[in-house]
């Protein structure tokens, strides 16, 4: 299977480049850790309010994990634009390698980086007082990885289609802000007014956050767990489809 072999080769190259600059991985980690340390403590007092299920960390950390998946993925497009500009993308497109591997290999690298960041984040959260079963933690990592994959595919696709940081930046922001505000990442939507709750129901990420919160309080029987996981899988498939088609459309 040339696709898998080529994806692996592209992944290894991308991974090696990321490891040569661990600074960027650390900077990516900084944001969720700042949220954890500077925003998390505020929640301790709000957690007593009605609408909160579980303790403050069980509500807040799933939100941060989902945020990490979304934002960690959304910004990778800048990297692929830089690679296109240095001729690397065209150079790889001219080889007999499967063209979709060129985006899939890079997305795989992004998923690995995001997953490592998620592990560090969970470790910090543990130190601050988060207590969840190992299984819940693993499901959390899988969901983050899926979200990271979906958004990395999309961001890489937009990057390669527009070939311009100036176009990518506003697109990423336009995409990110409503997703962030309507998903209850920072505060659960259950404390929102009715109209905002209804609006947020149309945001798939709200359900993914809710699914992860249910997992974190060990409420595996809640159907939202399956809905959220399924949504995440659908998003990855969608992202992969967009990514593969963008790469193929390069020659059109």
């Amino acid at each position, binding site marked *: 299977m040339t696709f898998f072999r*080529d994806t692996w*080769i*592209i992944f*290894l*190259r991308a991974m*090696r*480049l990321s490891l*040569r*600059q661990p600074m960027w991985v650390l900077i990516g980690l900084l944001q969720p850790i700042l949220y954890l340390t500077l925003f998390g403590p505020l929640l301790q007092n709000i957690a007593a309010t009605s609408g909160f299920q579980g303790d403050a960390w069980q509500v807040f950390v799933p939100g941060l994990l989902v945020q990490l998946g979304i934002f960690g993925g959304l910004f990778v497009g800048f990297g692929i634009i830089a*690679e296109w*500009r*240095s*001729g*690397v993308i*065209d*150079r*790889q*497109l*001219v*080889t*007999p*390698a499967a063209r979709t591997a060129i985006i899939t290999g890079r997305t795989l690298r992004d998923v690995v980086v995001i997953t490592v960041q998620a592990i560090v984040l969970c470790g910090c959260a543990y130190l601050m007082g988060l207590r969840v079963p190992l299984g819940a933690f693993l499901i959390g990592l899988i969901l983050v990885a899926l979200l990271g994959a979906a958004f990395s595919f999309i961001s890489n696709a937009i990057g390669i289609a527009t070939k311009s940081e100036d176009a990518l930046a506003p697109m990423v922001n336009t995409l990110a802000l409503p997703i962030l505000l309507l998903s209850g990442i920072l505060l659960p939507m259950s404390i929102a007014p009715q109209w905002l709750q209804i609006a947020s129901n149309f945001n798939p990420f709200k359900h993914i956050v809710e699914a992860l919160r249910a997992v974190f309080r060990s409420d595996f029987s809640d159907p939202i767990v399956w809905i959220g996981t399924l949504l995440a899988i659908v998003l990855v498939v969608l992202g992969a489809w967009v990514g593969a088609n963008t790469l193929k459309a*390069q*020659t*059109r």
Partner: protein
Amino acid sequence: MFEHGDVDAAQLTVRGAQTTYGAAGAFRPVRSGRNWRHEDIMAATMIEAHGLKRTYKARGKSIEAVRGIDLKVDAGEIVGFLGPNGAGKTTTLKMLCTLLTPTGGSATVAGSDLRKDSVGVRRRIGYVSQAGSTSGEAVVGDEIISHARLYGIDRATSTKRGQELLTALDLSDVWSRTCGSLSGGQRRRLDIVMGLIHQPSLVFLDEPSTGLDPQSRANLWTHIRKLRDELGTTVFLTTHYMDEADSLSDRILIIDNGTIVAEGTPAELKKRVSGDAITLVLRHEEDAKRAADIAARLDGADKPGIEANRVWLHVPDGGRALPVLLADLTKAGIDAIGVDVNRPTLDDVFLTLTGKSLRD
């Protein structure tokens, strides 16, 4: 110096008779004993395109970047694709490299049909883009191996081949350096190493010397000639530099506004221009007028121009005409105090063909 592994036999024969192939001598013509005739060479065609066309759609309007190009490149040739910026050079090159699907026409590149078997084309061609091929932060050796593996070449072979190619292109000690630490000329040669790692029979170079200082350019040209002379690689390069096309190419295709307006060897193309320019400087205006009358009688001369004590005219072959002219002037008792013969440049050719200068 180079490995000659899987260059096919047809290609080897092309320059076999007149070229020396490295010290090892592994590259002798198979059928020695007679010289290769033109017919033998014609047998191996590397690129053949018919009516190749590319139309872009932008805001409802369609823009014809390439308007139907026919071209043929034989194995072992260095062909220069010359034209001003925006003429359609890079678009044509990208179509031939499978980076852009033609909107019309057909082509066979390195033995495979461009549309039906683009993977087959990609397997046998090398492409050196003007944008480069490596990430600045990446290590040279890693980039070479990773690239080679996309062609299915194993790590050991790609290391060996990569190091040989680097040595051949005067880059022997850069294996563990980062690509960004190389000079402009070194990095361009690294791009060529990347493009050659799978030993392609045909390599496309897009504006190879753009942005290099004169010394690096001259050095790069030497290496490009070596690709053909020592590896037998067919080279197709685009350029908007006259001197580059002139000094490197066996044959030049001139493209303007999406169509090929002329083709031929540099010498043939220059002959198309009205001829060589002869300029005479005489003692005074009186002599100039008489010299002009004499010069006008030269074979194939056009009407001489006179300005003060200077006379100029065009003749088909300046080198032959000049001794005759000087002898005639001496017979008539006229002393020329200065004389100048200018061969036409490709710039003149371009100007004659398109009515505009390449530098625009």
